[in-house]
């Protein structure tokens, strides 16, 4: 028996040694440290604009500032005039439509629906001055707003419903002298507040990023590497890298994690192999809206209720509007688990004038599938809601929402959908039957920001499980742990348990047999 014990100990030790030798604990990821090193030192500008005489004047209009800028940067306006931030559209090849122009000018969304006919208010987020209608002159360089992106004083703000002009209290001279590389405040002044409030649209872009810790965003954390938007979203000739699929449609000039992190960022080979099918964001952004809530649903059909003839609002315990007479009913979410979709970087959009093909209407559609080699699984915020459409023409309606005064058919002051629909569609030159209804819509927002520290990334089990894992809804591929061939499993289980039962019966038969034999023997002995 001693040898038995020794052998079993030796075998066990050998197995354990082998496993330990081949299973290494994680060493330092040097490439990660190199990146931290690279972004640790913040570049100081080599020029001080406050010393330029031309900027030391009292500017009467913001256009005067632009002209001052152009005296030195005398070709930059051409870059701007070709950019999508300025044009609100870009030329793209779209499946089924061919080469077409896509952008805020002609797509809709299921938040405030669309900028058309509401330019006076919506142009607050246009990098120009004086966009009061769709007659804006996109060739006039004087109207380029340099300051909204390059202000370094953090004092520049655009006025509410002022067609893109700055607030009257802004000290243009001070702003002009402060110009700098865009900071996160500049980008955030529009991109954090799209949809009418902080974090309403994106879910992963909001003002908390200006002062957050690593748990919220490892890249922008104040106590971390403290990067700004343009550290990643670099711009070559004012063409900023990165795509937002509410308005973009093609897989060009995208910004991907691997530009810094390479396609093999992990030390673990098995994790690296996920790269070909799983976007980094899928595991590294387990939840979005980690600080402030984001809108998950918006039902326009509930709008227009008045109390004593006046619009009103309701709030939840966190101060988020749950009802607004002018906009309808909302649902909010914090720490939301994304939904997951195959996505190859191409998208199509409902363009104004399109007819509805299916309900819920996909305001934008992300392309991709498991068998497409260019597709990966991405986390996506899906914003659901309903909005006004014409049941006879089967078109979504662009209503006129905003007007500074009553009696202009604008819904936000007159609360009459019929008039708002008519005015909006008339201005776009599109038919309106006179009937309106509300239709369910969905909008897809790939989640890219608010990357969590690695300790908080998805664990394997969150996808590799049979029990309602994160990827439970995706099909067309084999996911170990989630998937199985039921016939093989059934056969295997029958075989295994069958063998066990079989040998048990055999053993039992032997036992009974030997007992019976013993009895016979004892009986024989008794006889003697």
């Amino acid at each position, binding site marked *: 028996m001693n*040898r*038995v014990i020794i*052998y*079993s100990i030796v*075998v*066990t030790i*050998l*197995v354990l040694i*082998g*496993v330990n*030798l*081949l*299973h290494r604990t994680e060493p330092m990821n040097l490439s990660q440290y190199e990146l931290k090193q690279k972004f640790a030192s913040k570049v100081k500008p080599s020029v001080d604009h406050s010393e330029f005489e031309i900027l030391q004047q009292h500017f009467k209009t913001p256009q005067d500032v632009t002209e001052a800028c152009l005296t030195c940067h005398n070709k930059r306006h051409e870059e701007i005039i070709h950019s999508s931030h300025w044009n609100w559209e870009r030329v793209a090849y779209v499946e089924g439509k061919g080469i077409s122009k896509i952008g805020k000018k002609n797509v809709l969304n299921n938040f405030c629906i669309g900028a058309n006919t509401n330019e006076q208010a919506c142009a607050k987020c246009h990098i120009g001055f004086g966009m009061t209608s769709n007659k804006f002159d996109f060739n006039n360089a004087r109207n380029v707003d340099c300051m909204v992106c390059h202000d370094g004083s953090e004092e520049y703000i655009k006025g509410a419903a002022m067609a893109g002009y700055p607030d009257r209290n802004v000290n243009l001279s001070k702003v002009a002298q402060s110009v700098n590389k865009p900071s996160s405040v500049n980008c955030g002044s529009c991109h954090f507040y799209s949809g009418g409030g902080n974090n309403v649209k994106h879910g992963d872009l909001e003002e908390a990023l200006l002062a957050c810790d690593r748990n919220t965003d490892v890249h922008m954390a104040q106590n971390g590497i403290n990067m700004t938007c343009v550290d990643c979203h670099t711009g070559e000739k004012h063409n900023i890298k990165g795509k937002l699929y509410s308005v973009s449609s093609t897989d060009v000039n995208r910004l991907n994690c691997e530009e810094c992190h390479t*396609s*093999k960022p992990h030390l673990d*080979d*098995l994790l*690296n*192999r996920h*790269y*070909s*099918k799983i976007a980094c964001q899928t595991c590294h952004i387990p939840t979005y809206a980690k600080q402030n809530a984001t809108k998950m649903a918006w039902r326009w059909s509930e709008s227009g209720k008045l109390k004593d003839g006046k619009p009103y609002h309701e709030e939840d315990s966190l101060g988020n509007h749950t009802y607004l007479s002018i906009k309808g009913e909302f649902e909010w979410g914090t720490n939301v688990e994304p939904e997951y979709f195959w996505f190859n970087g191409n998208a199509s959009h409902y363009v104004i004038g399109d007819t509805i093909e299916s309900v819920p209407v996909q305001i934008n559609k992300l392309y991709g599938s498991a068998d497409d*080699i260019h597709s990966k699984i991405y986390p996506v915020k899906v914003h659901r809601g309903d909005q006004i459409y014409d049941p006879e023409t089967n078109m979504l309606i662009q209503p006129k929402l905003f007007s500074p005064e009553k009696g202009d058919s604008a819904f936000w002051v007159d609360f009459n959908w019929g008039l708002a629909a008519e005015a909006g569609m008339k201005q776009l030159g599109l038919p309106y039957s006179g009937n309106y209804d509300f239709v369910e819509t969905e909008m897809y927002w790939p989640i890219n920001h608010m990357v969590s520290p690695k300790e908080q990334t998805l*664990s*394997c*089990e969150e996808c*590799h*499980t*049979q029990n309602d894992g994160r990827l439970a809804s995706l099909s067309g*591929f*084999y996911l*170990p*742990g*989630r*998937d*199985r*061939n039921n016939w*093989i*499993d059934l*056969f*295997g*289980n029958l*075989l*295994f348990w*069958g*063998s*066990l039962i*079989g*040998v048990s019966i*055999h*053993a039992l*038969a*032997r036992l009974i*047999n030997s007992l019976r*034999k013993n009895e016979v023997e004892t009986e024989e002995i008794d006889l003697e």
Partner: protein
Amino acid sequence: MRQVYIYKKFERFWHWSQAALIFFLALTGFEIHDSIHLFGFEKAVAFHRSASYLLLGLIGLSIFWHFTTGEWKQYIPTLSKLKDQIHYYTIGMFKGDPHPTIKSAHKKLNPLQAVVYLGFKLVMAPMVILSGILYLYYKSFDVNDIVVALDIPLEWIAVIHTLGAFLLMSFVVVHVYMTTTGHSLTANIKAMITGWENLEDEEDARQEENKSSKN
């Protein structure tokens, strides 16, 4: 009956380390299959992969050993007495009949064992090993850091690997049980541990056989 040194040192080492590895691989493998929960998926995968390399190494050694020692001939199946052997396990042993075949250092396996073990070596093991190797290297990177695209769907690889695992597990169940059918309940296991087993003397047996045939 006399003590015979039937299993050599390497054979015993190979047998028991392979048994341990297969047991460990089954545990971790069925965890990856989400049938049991023990180490957690990530560790289960890491352990399963490490252990699989060990098993590959061990099998390499054992193949070398089998061919250099000529032991591979033990697995050549024979039809003679195969029926007797099946008859013994299903009926004979309950009547107290003797083993129909005689175990010796030259003939360690009875005809039924030879067939089953050959099946193990030619069907079950290659099934799990080949599918396992494909699984191991599925979507790995080549020297240019490009993902190696394999046209075989992962599902097929996984299904074959799983089927092989189920076959192996059933084999283990029956195999372990059958060790109790020796001269005593533990005689076979003891032999595989110590190398020594009480066996009928071949000479005696032959004489007995001759006697009975004369009668």
